[in-house]
């Protein structure tokens, strides 16, 4: 069986190459799915690690970032001034979030946003990220139209420090540009004084959310519980809540990516099946001869299945190579051993299903019928 299969593969080169290409493409798509899922998950967990021990209070029912949230600034001030919460005042602040450029797909994160933060509370928002140019903080009590740009926000702008850019139709002076950091939400943002944000986006007397940092992060859950009790209409979001929400949000992209991978696999399977059918039809007389000289049906099935399997297995290494290149380009980890086994299983499955029906058809032909076949 193996000898006949190998001979056929090496003789019918175009057909073999076509099937191998189909398997490579299908397996590559599955590999891409896994890499993308790995990348999204690592991006999410890295981002959320920054929020350990912090809470966000925002309008009930809104998600994070709270673009759709609107709170009264009076309520925000009342919460910030609560002595019983034992807050680190220097690292607690009210904020405004506005999305200025959506993600490419509905479920993808925003590509650009503006964050309004009171002058002096910048460290609460982005910690100790230093400026690559200009400054990383506003002048004390600054309320004017000035901006500190995140690394990604500034990437495509050719503005020097002191130059101006437009935000929501109003000109804003750039006073600083931040270094690229691990906080993607800051990298894609323009940070402006809270009052300026309220003015530019017509949100006077409103904020999007309140960032609270407890003095002791062990108190995070207790503070969250207390606030939920006192303000039942508001949403209190901890890092755990963010993680759950992010996982829920990721379900859709994971589903889309998986669908893409599965579609690739189905296409590979169909190409194998149709190519094998063509091959079976060409080789009807050959199979009839084998049956006539004493080959049992399982030999015919085995020969066809072995051909399909070999083509699938040859298609796997180039697909894995392409997936590895893609992982490197996306600066994400290579597929794990378990994921590689998934990829190989997918290829074997595609070959199995793609080759099975043609194999059964080939074995069912009676020798006499096959030998009469022109």
């Amino acid at each position, binding site marked *: 069986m193996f*000898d*006949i299969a190998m*001979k*056929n593969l*090496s*003789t019918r080169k175009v057909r073999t190459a076509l099937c191998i290409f189909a398997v490579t493409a299908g397996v590559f798509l599955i590999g891409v799915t896994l890499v993308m899922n790995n990348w999204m998950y690592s991006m999410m967990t890295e981002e959320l690690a920054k929020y350990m021990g912090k809470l966000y209070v925002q309008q009930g029912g809104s998600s994070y970032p709270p673009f759709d949230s609107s709170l009264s600034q009076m309520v925000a001030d009342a919460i910030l001034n609560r002595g019983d919460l034992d807050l680190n005042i220097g690292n607690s602040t009210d904020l405004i979030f506005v999305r200025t450029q959506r993600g490419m797909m509905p479920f993808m994160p925003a590509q650009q946003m503006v964050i309004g933060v009171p002058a002096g509370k910048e460290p609460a928002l982005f910690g100790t990220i230093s400026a690559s140019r200009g400054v990383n903080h506003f002048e004390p009590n600054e309320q004017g139209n000035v901006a500190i740009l995140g690394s990604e926000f500034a990437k495509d702008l050719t503005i020097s420090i002191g130059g101006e850019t437009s935000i929501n139709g109003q000109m804003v002076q750039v006073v600083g540009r931040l270094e690229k950091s691990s906080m993607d939400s800051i990298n894609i943002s323009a940070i402006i004084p809270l009052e300026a944000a309220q003015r530019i986006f017509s949100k006077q007397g409103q904020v999007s959310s309140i960032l609270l940092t407890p003095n002791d992060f062990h108190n995070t859950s207790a503070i969250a519980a207390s606030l939920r009790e006192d303000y039942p209409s508001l949403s209190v979001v901890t890092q755990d809540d963010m993680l759950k929400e992010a996982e829920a949000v990721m379900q859709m992209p994971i589903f889309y990516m998986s669908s893409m991978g599965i579609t690739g696999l189905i296409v590979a399977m169909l190409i194998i099946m149709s190519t094998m059918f063509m091959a079976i039809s060409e080789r009807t*007389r*050959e199979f*009839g*001869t*084998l*049956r*006539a*000289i*004493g*080959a*049992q*049906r399982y*030999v015919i099935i085995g020969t066809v299945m072995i051909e399909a399997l070999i083509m699938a297995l040859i298609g796997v290494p180039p697909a894995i190579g392409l997936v590895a290149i893609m992982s490197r380009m996306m600066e994400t980890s290579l597929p794990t051993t378990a994921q590689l086994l998934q990829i190989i299983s997918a290829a074997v499955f595609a070959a199995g299903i793609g080759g099975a029906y043609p194999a059964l058809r080939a074995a069912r032909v009676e*020798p*006499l019928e096959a*030998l009469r076949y022109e």
Partner: protein
Amino acid sequence: MGPIVETRNVCKTYGMNGIAVEAVRGIDLMVNSGEFVAIVGPSGSGKSSLLNLLGAMDSPSSGEVLFDGRSLTELNDWQRTTLRLKHIGFVFQTFNLLPTLTASENIEIALRLASVGRRESAARAGELLRLVGLSPRALHKPRYLSGGERQRVAIARSLANRPQLLLADEPTGNLDSQTGTSILELLRDLCTRNGQTVILVTHDFRAASYADRVLLLRDGRIHGETSLHAGQDSSQVLGQLLSFELQWGGDRSD
């Protein structure tokens, strides 16, 4: 020792587009070990259908086919396939070699199907290629062989598992007369020297003249039988056959 193959009132009817076609009608036939039997008849006489029944490639509509005393009608597909593999050799008009295998590999495949090891298969293939005079062509694929050479390889393949019976269906049908003669001489030689039992199906009396016994088939029935004697020259044999055919209502003009 009983006959190698025997038929008892065997019939084969094909249903085509709702019309029944009786290809074989009540044939009683017996072939003994070491015999060379030719079944002669015009196209449509049922000779290939009869051969397929004798070779367990087809099942009779009624009657019985016995191989070495065992009824083939009792056998399932697996058993009939095993019988063809181990006890019956086929030589086809169109050679039916596997195009992707070399001459040697085409012979070896029959042995590998019978679970013979790689080395032993290669050795046996070499032996058979020597027998048919094609050792230098062992590594050539069928497309590089002439018609006669392909048929020799097919004959060698049919002998791979030392079958009790060799069935040849118009083995010279696609060959020129000189090449055809060499093939017939090879079959005759196998019978004479090795005691191989051969049943040859042909429409050509010249081909039939190589046999020990000739059966005339018309319209699915055996109309006559004649034995050819060793030592007769070819013109005597042909003359005997032609008169035999005319006796039974033949209208050959050549």
